[in-house]
């Protein structure tokens, strides 16, 4: 029987949750026994190649490309998991939700005290995805089945969660593993 497939992505996040996944240390060998990785920054596969059992979403949705990616995950994964505070709440990037988008861009590219930008232009290439008006947590864009808060969730929490999901058991983490920081 084919191993269940797992896909992961980092949207508007810092890859810290992926680092935490790698922090499961030697258990990664066990993980490789249990699953095949599909689209993921870990193997650099760019698009989901076939139906996956589990999709792990790091990061919230900050631009139109994030939305496209998370929708690809939703379409192709049986179970979608928000991993980390950015996916569950918007996280640090959502600090920009407290500032109007225009002001935010101008501060970043024109007025900021450390900015050197003689042209005074805000980067605007066809290839750059447009920003959303604010940063959205994953579950406000697509239906999300499980949430693993934490910045990042600990390796133990991720390990426990993946194992529970693979075993089709209810995802109930012990008190010590649920953290918002």
């Amino acid at each position: 029987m084919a191993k269940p497939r797992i896909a992961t992505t980092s949207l508007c996040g810092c890859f810290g949750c992926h680092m935490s996944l790698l922090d499961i240390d030697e258990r990664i060998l066990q993980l490789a026994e249990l699953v095949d990785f599909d689209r993921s920054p870990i193997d650099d596969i760019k698009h989901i190649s076939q139906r996956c059992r589990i999709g792990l979403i790091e990061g919230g949705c900050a631009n139109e490309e994030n939305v496209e990616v998370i929708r690809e995950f939703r379409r192709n994964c049986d179970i979608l998991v928000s991993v980390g505070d950015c996916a569950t709440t918007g996280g640090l990037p959502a600090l920009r939700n407290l500032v109007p988008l225009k002001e935010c861009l101008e501060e970043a590219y024109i007025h900021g005290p450390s900015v050197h930008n003689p042209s005074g232009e805000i980067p605007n290439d066809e290839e750059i995805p447009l920003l959303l008006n604010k940063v959205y947590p994953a579950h406000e864009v697509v239906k999300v089945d499980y949430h693993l808060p934490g910045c990042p969730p600990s390796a133990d929490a991720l390990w426990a969660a993946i194992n529970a999901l693979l075993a089709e058991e209810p995802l109930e983490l012990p008190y010590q593993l649920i953290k918002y920081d």
Partner: protein
Amino acid sequence: MSTLLDSAVRKICKAHDNDPTRLLDVARAVQEKYRCVSDEAIDVISQVLHLPRVTVESLVSFYAFLSTEKQGRVIIRLCDDVIDRMHGYDRVLDAFREELGIELGETTPDGNITLERTACIGMSDQAPAALINDVVVTRLNSDSAREIVRELREHMDPQRLVRTYGRGNNAHDLIRSMVRNNIQTEGLVLLTRTNRGEALRKALSLRPVEVIRAIKTARVRGRGGAGFPTGMKWEFTRAADGEQKVIICNADEGEPGTFKDRILLTEYPDRVFAGMTIAGYAIGAQEGILYLRAEYAYLKAFLEDRLEKRRKEGLLGENVLGHSRFHFDIRIQMGAGAYVCGEETALISSCEGTRGDPKNRPPFPAQHGYLGRPTSVNNVETLCCVTKIMEEGAAAFSQFGTNQSSGTKLLSISGDCRRPGVYELPFGTTLREVLNLCDAEDSIAVQVGGPSGQMVGPDAYDRQICFDDLATGGSIMTFGPQRDLLEVVHAFLEFFEDESCGYCTPCRVGTVLLKEAVERVRDDLCEPVDIDRFQEMGKMMKAMSRCGLGQTAPNPVLSTLENFPGLYANCKKEDSEGYRRSFDLEGSVTEASAIAGRPAHATGEKGGR
């Protein structure tokens, strides 16, 4: 700091005995004189009344009719309420905006005229209406709105806008208002003529406990909506420890769509004051307070005059009607624009000169009310009932109504009906009879009891108006076939959001979340799971909010979910791809698209709404 302002504010404080419990009156007086309670004024008040500065700021920031920013010499407060919206609020607002050249919340550059919106001002039977300073203008349309602005620019005197007076005391020298009474039914009990003093004389010939017994025999329940037995309330207050006791008449008629107390105050003020005096006698109070909502300020001079007359006639003051041990007087406490102050403990806070935050119960007002004194708070209509019971006996009163709801009820009827106005009907009258009377048979929905009540449809028209079936403090709004009921629900939720005092979490946050949820339903962005969540939250608000406002704020949603499930048919099944219907990709990139000056890449892809 201007020494002129300093001495003027000091004078105002002194006129209120430098009494910190009169802070609301002080702030109102300063607002009236300077068109704001400025930071400088706050400094002076806090100094003179020995209050922390922030306490004064707290009060000023709480009431809608007080402001720290300077307002125009004339303030136009356009009544923004669902009934006014049905009768052309938008067109009137547009006319004011265009003619004044300003937006809501702004003041004309010459500092003359401020344009604001305000919650229901008690004129739903003659909507759209507005307050222009204290002057009420009714039945507005875009033409009259423009005319009002032009005239104001000429003379800046709102009173001169009134050319024809309403009937009855509306034409009284001390009122001179265009407000109409619209009394639509012959009075059975309350809206009848009476001999002043007779009820009080009868009451004073009895012992206080006998007065209470008479009220209990008549089975009077509070007319504000909650329906607590009046006799029992008085008994508790009478029995409570305390030298000084207080009777407060709740004339903060703020429930949108209610205006029956306005009629009683205009046409039968002596009946109200007699009721207060009788209540004072029964519970052993020396002090009465009429809490009059700021929107009814145009009645204040008239009511003060009546009080003065009553003092002269021996109906108030030392030894009322020669009674050796009964001394009683009444003062009027003006509100300053806060719906929550209709809640009795919030009303007491307001009388004490603080923010209108409700208080924790227990202790109940009957034990520990105004300034810690045992206090009975009664509705205007309830006190009129008291007067009539003394006059005509308990049996004459309780011959009307049902077993559990004795007597008659004043209904304020507005909306899509040909005969809006005030009706006095026996409790137990069916909604269908009510709709026949006011000529609104084609109503698709009726809101009974205002936003905090419930919305019912035709299958409920045979239900009865009474405490145990369709309870109402008096508000009945009718909606014809052309109305979008979801807009009505939304307007009610906006109202609660505006009026929440913010003390407790369920109400403060829940009112915002519920309103936004209804917006998503309206905009076709909702899924069934959202509805489940918000229904659950509504139930939580009912159970866990601290006062009646939060406990009833979810009613517009909960009652329509139950009685008009079709309104929520927009909440379609989850998207088959699992995309959230509430996420609007196109809408969320318009801002960036405009900044970048290029279209979004998004997206022919499905779900790219």
